[in-house]
């Protein structure tokens, strides 16, 4: 999956968790949790959904790397390689 498809997948899963979101509103370069109201349960559900869809393991220790949408896409890309 290329970066564009990954980004699309990430946004899809995000919108499943937060249906009030509109795709155009998301800035990839700003911290995600500043833009979307996600509590720790939402966050975990979001990552589990990505895990199940993309078959990647996301250890808790890596959460700190996953701040912006761009970071998440890059992280998933590196995991897939």
């Amino acid at each position, binding site marked *: 999956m290329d970066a564009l498809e990954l980004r699309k997948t990430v946004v899809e899963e995000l919108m499943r968790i937060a249906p009030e979101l509109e795709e155009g509103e998301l800035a990839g370069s700003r911290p995600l949790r500043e833009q979307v109201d996600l509590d720790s349960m939402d966050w*975990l559900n979001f990552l589990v959904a990505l895990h199940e869809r993309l078959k990647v393991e996301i250890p808790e220790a890596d959460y700190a790397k996953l701040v912006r949408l761009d970071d998440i896409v890059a992280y998933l890309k590196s995991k897939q390689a």
Partner: protein
Amino acid sequence: MIEFKLPALGSDMEEGKLLEWKAKPGDKVKRGDVVAVVDTSKAAVEVEIWEEGTMHEWIVQPGETVPIGAVLALLLAPGENPETAVRPEIAPVRPAAAPAPVAAPAAAAPAPGARRRISPAARKHAEDLGVNLDAVEGTGPGGAVTVEDIERAAKAAPPRRSAPPLLGEEGKAVQPTLDRAAEMRRAIALAMSRSKREIPHYYLSETISLARAAAWLEAENARRPMTGRLLMAVLTLKAVALACKACPDMNGHFRDGRFAPSAAVHAGVAISLRQGGLIAPGIHDVQAKSLSELMRNLADLVKRARAGSLRSSEMSDPTITVTNLGEGGVESVFGVIYPPQVAIVGFGTIARRPWVEDGEVRIAPAVVASLSADHRASDGHRGALFLAEIARLLQQPEKL
């Protein structure tokens, strides 16, 4: 015959609209089966039955709105014959839609200190029919309120409805059905106003180090599959439930001037809904469940609360409530008690703070735990012990 009545699905509910029957005449049902779906202002709730029997007759049809306590259906008890079973007299259901003016509570309340004589049967009857006992005149010996008094009051008064109609501009009534958000706002306003009117709250807080709990959780989650990961909210929830064992006066219901403690801890979890509003359905027997089980229960509950699909027992029987408003970033939260419960525990955001231990300053993740409790059921000293017990339990996360 068994009368299947509309239960109170939370203290902020006065009436419900039957959406759907899940059992048709002739169907056998057992304890815990979902027999109907009822819409409150907050969610479509699957209503369970707590008796075994056979569905006999639907009294209320889908689409009808009825007050709490109304008989929805009649069922045959095991062994009962439809030919010979005695059909109970059912009062015609008055439409619950016509709002009644609000009675000033002060006018109807008995003089302070005056104890009214009300038989348990009459009290039960009043509860079933949704009659406000304060407004009933007793005609029994010594002014005691009898079952007949309750029935007279039920016939005379339209179903209790303390919320005034919503008024739009120029004083015109707003169509409430159109705006679920407004309905929910009103339901919350009703329950919280009642809480603040009736419950003498007292408030305590304590900052708790989560250094041990966080380290334990990190190690635990590292060895678990992603789908089995735990959240700190589950540890704090379990700690609250176990602390209730040590301080039973925080867990239960205050009804009819008395506090009735509960052995089981059914913990209501405050869940904010994405479209606005709040709902606090319960997880049953938290004290007896493993952390993994609680995590599954919590995830499922949040999902169903947001999808608007909850069960009647989850709405009606929480014995204490926990709120994690700290997720939103606030340092501390002092909740409003959800009647007839007597306590709500709040957890603020988990933040790294300077922490003094063994004469040294360290950096530790810490949380402000708060307690709002009912002074009719306990005193501040007990509340302090309760918070201290939660703090102590969170220092031994492996035992939770």
